[in-house]
């Protein structure tokens, strides 16, 4: 009987794990959820973020399926665009999407809600005048975030596990964590979760995940 040598074993292991390369700018923005999912699941990937907008982007753009990022390149041969599609694919492949079709659709629903929150907050996020920024943020909070949180709290309590979907962590929980810990939220959103204690606790739970903690400690500091 011949047993595989250690180098052969390591090669076999590395062949099972797909080679992921995530293209995005050196900001959190639309790419951060994908990064968090990969870190949370303990899946190695190349976090390709050193893209200078003027020097590098014009060339890289032409290789991207829709001329946009984020893009996930798998094994150097195939590409996937659209931030939510990439996040969902990674969540499904690595056990963070929900336990059955209905749960997966619930997770999709929550993540689409977070996507809507991001869209509503984008003007405030990139506003350079601090006074205007605060006004824009307060308006989004009042008109969009607070009404949404009221519903999310009800659903969280009803679900009863502390998580948004089913009994365990899904990318929906990570999506809310990502949105409520953005730089603008950290700076201006101190009171935002006051009326949402269950969501606040869930966000803390996600933040305390060892893999996420380790990533967040070393993540580049960016404005958005």
């Amino acid at each position: 009987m011949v047993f595989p040598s250690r180098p052969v074993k390591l090669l076999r292991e590395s062949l099972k794990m797909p080679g992921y390369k995530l293209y995005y700018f050196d900001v959190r923005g639309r790419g951060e959820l994908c990064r968090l999912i990969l870190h949370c699941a303990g899946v190695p990937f190349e976090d390709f973020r050193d893209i200078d907008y003027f020097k590098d982007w014009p060339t890289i753009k032409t290789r991207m399926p829709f001329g946009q990022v984020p893009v996930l390149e798998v094994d150097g041969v195939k590409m996937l665009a659209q931030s939510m599609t990439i996040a969902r694919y990674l969540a499904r492949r690595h056990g963070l999407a929900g336990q059955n079709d209905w749960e997966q659709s619930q997770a999709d629903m929550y993540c689409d809600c977070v996507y809507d929150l991001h869209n509503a907050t984008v003007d405030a996020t990139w506003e350079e005048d601090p006074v205007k920024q605060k006004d824009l943020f307060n308006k989004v909070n009042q008109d969009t975030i607070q009404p949404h949180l009221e519903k999310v709290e009800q659903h969280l309590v009803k679900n009863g596990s502390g998580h948004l979907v089913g009994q365990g962590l899904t990318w929906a929980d990570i999506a809310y964590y990502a949105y409520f810990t953005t730089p603008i939220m950290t700076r201006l959103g101190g009171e935002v979760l006051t009326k949402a204690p269950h969501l606040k606790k869930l966000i803390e739970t996600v933040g305390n995940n060892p893999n996420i903690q380790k990533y967040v400690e070393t993540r580049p500091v960016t404005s958005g």
Partner: protein
Amino acid sequence: MPQYKLHYFNLHGMGELPRMIFHYAGVPFEDVRFEPSEWPQLKANMPFGQVPVLELDGKLLSQSYAIARYIARQHGLAGQGDWEQAQVDMYADCIKDFMINGRPVHDEQDPEKQKVLMTKFASEKLIPHMAVLEAQLAKNGGVLVGKGVTWADIACYAFFNHATVKHPDILKDSPNMAALVSQIGSNDNIKKYLETRPAYH
């Protein structure tokens, strides 16, 4: 057969895609439509105070694309395997982007401002991304992903079927997309639905 109810305004909007997936798949559902005047009383019953909402055996799902994806998956219109399903999601998201980015253009009342917004939307999003869809259709034998129609193709149909009413030339440079729209529109179930569907608005 599960008991499906779809709740939405008596409009196309974000409800039309789920409706069309049901019809294309030949799956019966209750197409619950209401007028804007009825909405204030109904809003509180919806998971996030929005529609469309899918009601399935008493459970509720909101967000039009989560609904569309769920129905498509249950009825063989989502693609085969994780990678194909992700490709389908990607192309569907492209259409969703057209709708999200086209909305402010559509809503702008001032004709001069609308012209500026339209030019920006067309040059930055609509035209380049329609070219991507067109190239993919040419490369993949007339459907976007895999070997058959998926909900991404139906999303294209729903979008362009609606858009061609106000913009009849929108597909003039996209013969493959025009062929796909025609193909889906020729489906017996879709044809039957369009005959009885309330008028465009």
